[in-house]
């Protein structure tokens, strides 16, 4: 999946991937896609939940060798 920016969260556990995503989203423009790379399994359910709470769009994820790539789109400013 194509993303405008990537956020490396390898080696970080809850809540850091979500906290960092929220901080990063402040820099993004509406419509841009962020790729979050994480090895914390919690992110699989945490990121969709974060999207539900904040109203941003969860586009999907890919998992390979324990590396989870999550794609989120900034739906509003």
């Amino acid at each position, binding site marked *: 999946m194509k993303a405008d920016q990537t956020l490396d969260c390898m080696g*970080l*556990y809850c*809540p850091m991937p*979500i*906290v960092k*995503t*929220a901080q990063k989203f402040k820099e993004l423009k509406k419509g841009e896609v962020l790729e979050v790379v994480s090895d914390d399994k919690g992110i699989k359910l945490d990121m969709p939940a974060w999207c539900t709470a*904040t109203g941003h769009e969860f586009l999907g994820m890919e998992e390979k060798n324990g590396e989870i790539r999550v794609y989120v789109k900034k739906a509003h400013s």
Partner: protein
Amino acid sequence: MAEKEKMTIVVFSGDLDKALAAFILATTGASMGMEVSMFFTFWGLNVIKKNKGSIESKGLMRKMLNVMNRGGSKRLKLSKFHMLGLGTWMMKRMMKEVNMPSIDEFITMAHEMGVKLLACSTTCGVMGLPENSFRPEVDSIVGAAYFLNESREAKISLFI
């Protein structure tokens, strides 16, 4: 989005592990767009006491209490397996190994994210803690009515 949802947390405990749980939830709540208030009371006040300098309380009993119960984010102990400091030291080390922020870092982070850090006025009075006992990140000293009014509008309210 419409008006921000509120989340309130009472931090009653001064244990390292419980404070950690409180800050994980507070920073996550703030990341989810919620307006978070943390209300520190009783032993929980130890979490937000400044780490350096002395606590200027009046009266022998309060002075004694604040020497024995000095507090400060760097002095918190685990609720289990403190083992004269060895267990707590090991836990802090393990946290560092997996890049988990320390309580100190969590306080700075929460403050920067707009989490309100409130100290309970009654316990400050009972335990003899003037405002300068706390770190600069602490927003204000408030009473139960303020906290309850915040909680009245909160969707999530926790007691830790």
